[in-house]
């Protein structure tokens, strides 16, 4: 038994390096995709301390808007812009209706409010677009489709162009966001708001403005995530379930860190694929569902604030 747990998987890794590379690649790809969802969470959490339960449904909603508009005959890129505008409208409405009256309330209350928002968006989205799954308009958006097969290490590694594109787009977005939030005045204000609404108000930071900005940014991230996930597995309301995977990613990376979301995503993605692929069979597979959380938990025991999260200040 011990041999099976401790040795065999590694032997197998060595025997079939192509599969190992493929596994790593798949892990990286899902990691990037998880990270995209997690990023939306991070943005909002960073800026308002709100744990946005609605991020998953925002991903679906954004993608549905895009595809729905396209199906109505709107040209793809115009639809893309309109979808972005929709997310802006959503951000403004959320700020007006939900966040503004709930300023300075405990985190968990805001968390609950985003749950109300989720319910509302599910109902609203299905009312408008129907519950049917839709195909992402990959071609119209000029997303690459093919596969590159690399013969290496005595095997063959398949790289989907779509995945490569996802990785590239995600890196660009993350780069932009990281610069925007760390190098600008707004970035500092964001962290201030997350720290204390009350104090932020008192120094004249406009919470309203900040919130619209970050919710819009999160909406855009959701749109990108929606396009990427949609291209991979179709656009439907069941996509929101996947958003749950963003949780261990977030927790591992730290709620407030943009790089954390990425690294967390990659660790979780690779970790769970390797775990499932090499160790899963020992227990009949399907360990992927909880492995991510256990990985996150182990990291947390060493760093209770996640890898890159802000230190939890304990002072009295």
């Amino acid at each position, binding site marked *: 038994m011990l041999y099976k747990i401790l040795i065999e998987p590694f032997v197998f890794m060595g025997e079939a390096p192509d599969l190992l590379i493929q596994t790593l690649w798949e892990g990286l790809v899902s990691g990037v995709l998880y990270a995209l969802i997690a990023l939306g969470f991070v943005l909002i959490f960073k800026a308002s301390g709100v744990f946005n339960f609605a991020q998953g449904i925002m991903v679906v909603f954004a993608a549905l808007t895009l595809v729905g508009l396209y199906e109505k005959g709107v040209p793809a890129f115009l639809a893309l812009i309109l979808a972005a505008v929709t997310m802006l409208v959503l951000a403004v409405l959320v700020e007006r209706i*939900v966040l503004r009256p709930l300023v300075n*309330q405990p985190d*968990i209350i805001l968390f609950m409010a985003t749950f*109300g928002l989720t319910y509302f968006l599910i109902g609203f989205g299905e009312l408008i677009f129907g519950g049917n799954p839709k195909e992402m308009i990959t071609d119209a958006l000029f997303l690459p489709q093919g596969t590159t097969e690399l013969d290496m290490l005595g095997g063959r590694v398949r790289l989907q162009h779509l995945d490569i594109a996802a990785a590239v787009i995600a890196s660009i977005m993350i780069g932009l966001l990281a610069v925007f939030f760390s190098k600008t005045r707004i970035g500092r204000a964001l962290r201030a708001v997350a720290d204390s609404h009350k104090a932020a108000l008192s120094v004249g930071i406009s919470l309203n403005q900040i919130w619209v900005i970050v919710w819009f940014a999160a909406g855009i991230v959701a749109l990108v995530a929606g396009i990427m996930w949609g291209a991979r597995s179709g656009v439907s309301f069941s996509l929101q379930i996947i958003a749950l995977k963003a949780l261990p990613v977030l927790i591992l990376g730290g*709620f407030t860190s943009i790089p954390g979301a990425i690294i967390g995503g990659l660790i979780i993605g690779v970790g769970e694929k390797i775990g499932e692929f090499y160790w899963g069979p020992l227990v009949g597979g399907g360990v992927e*569902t909880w492995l991510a959380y256990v990985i996150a938990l182990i990291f947390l025991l060493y760093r*209770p604030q996640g890898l890159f999260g802000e230190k939890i200040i*304990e002072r009295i």
Partner: protein
Amino acid sequence: MLYREAGQFKTSYVADSAIFPLRQDRIGIGLIILAAYALAFIGNSFLLQAVMIPFLVFSLASIGLNILTGYTGLLSLGTGAFMGVGAYACYKLMTAFPEVNVIVWIFVSGFFSAAIGALFGLPSLRIKGFYLAVATLAAQFFLQWCFIRIPWLVNYNVSGALDAPLRTLFGIPIVGATATPQTRYLVVLTIVILLTWLASNLVHGRIGRMWIAIRDMDLAAELMGIRPLQTKLLAFAVSSYYCGVAGALLVFLWYGGAEYDVFNINQSFFILFMVIIGGLGSLIGSFFGAALIFILPIVLGIVLPAILSPFGISVGADVIEHLRFMIVGALIIFFLIVEPHGLARLWQIGKQKLLVWPFPY
């Protein structure tokens, strides 16, 4: 004039630290309990079976989670799984020892989830807040995986599901196909009242104060001699006990058979939202929350078509469902804005206003 504190003086600390010091409140509670029992004899089977039983079961689970999240301030997203542990434990116990009354096993099954809950509560010493949620999420997904993967848990049923064999109390079936909604309701009601009473004793005593202390200011609590780990683990255990019992009730007295799927993460969220909207740290809030989150959609499902049809708008079940989602979502936000501390606080403010009525303050 009916709701006045004046004239009710306490002459002993016992009377003053009673859980309902106000006579009106005591009478009110008595009346509500009476009415709840009376409902068994006047309510129709839909009301009992589809509304009241689940409402009570969810209230119990909410009380459980409220002990952990509301009173002790530890966020848990594993409620569904802890309920599941209770249900599976109860199933194993009642099929392994059919001669012991099922009520006993329902109570005993809670201890299994208490143990598992405490186990997953261990990281809470180091990990806090939303981060702690990951430990409970790990519990949620891991346990759920166990429910599917260990066929022993369901006695190797081909269906992979829990079923509810016939069990009786005083010769009257309470579990199984032939148990009537009425008897099930009475059993559930009695268990829920009993456990609520115990919970209320706990949270109003020393242990409750220790929990709240940990929640409000854990560092200060520790500096006052409260052992954080023990206190937190106790909260995890007690909370999971309640969830476990609720899980057993859910499967055997409500559904009468269920797949692992009813204990999924959505169930966890569902209960959490009941707790929040009802009021963190309030037992009565748990009931309010369960009512709002569980009963409101049902009422809407009945009321909406009735509202829309006079206008000649006949809409499909799906549109009703969409509207229902939207309205429930909007109402949650609305209630939070009106009173972020939940319905329980709203209730309290209402009572306070009643005390000073007719003056505004």
